[in-house]
């Protein structure tokens, strides 16, 4: 299954809805999307991973890269994820301590630092 990406604004936040597989093959496209958003001045990102079927460490690397980019502009990168098998990968790599992970886009939108 391929990667699908769509973005929309929610107030001052930008929601990136990701679907399909984020892996070594598709991660460059997600990376490009995040780089473009930051270049466009979008520094408060919410990555909605509810429709992600597969995530590997390459995908994690891209998310970490995105986090570094928005932080350089005092921004934020929040994740929406309730899927256990995806959460497990964040836990294994210690990234649950790095990313704020929310259980819905609404929750992520209303979250403050």
């Amino acid at each position, binding site marked *: 299954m391929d990667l699908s990406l769509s973005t929309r604004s929610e107030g001052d936040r930008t929601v990136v809805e990701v679907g399909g*597989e984020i*892996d*070594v*093959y598709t*991660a*460059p496209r997600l*990376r490009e999307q995040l780089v473009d958003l930051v270049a466009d001045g979008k520094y408060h990102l919410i990555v909605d991973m509810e429709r992600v079927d*597969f995530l*590997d*460490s*390459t995908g*994690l*690397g*891209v998310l*970490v*890269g995105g986090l*570094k980019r928005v932080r350089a502009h005092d921004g934020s990168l929040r994740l929406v994820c309730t899927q256990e*098998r995806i959460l*497990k*990968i964040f836990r*294994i*790599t*210690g990234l649950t301590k790095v990313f704020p992970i929310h259980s819905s886009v609404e929750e992520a939108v209303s979250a403050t630092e």
Partner: protein
Amino acid sequence: MATVELRFSALPAHVRTARLVAAAVARRSGVDEAVLDEVRLAVGEACSRAVHLHRRHCPEVPVMVTLIDDEKAFSVAVTDEAPQGQREEQGTLADLAASAAESTDPDQELVIPEVGLAVITGLVEDVEVAPGRDRGVVVTMSWPISV
């Protein structure tokens, strides 16, 4: 004795082929359905790592994946041929992440081989990482077969 061997040129697209093959053969071998996601992820990590190292050190050499089903366990061995001396430094995940953060090489940001290994060892109970015959590393992962 039922063995499948897959060799592929070091391209990200073929990592998907390897995942697909591993999951299909694992299912047929009798690996529990609930574990197939783990097989897919772990084999993908091992192959991404190998592809990354080959692209850097020996882009012409294929990556090899061997699937063995010996009726008690299903095993996958992923062999890279990256020269030993030039392999990435070991270090903590935080060190690696920090060095990735400083790097401007977009490829390095994408793939940190040791993070992939950390995922594998965090995920799979039975993993062995051993030096290859001449060079490189063989990552062998096994799962029990529930018949």
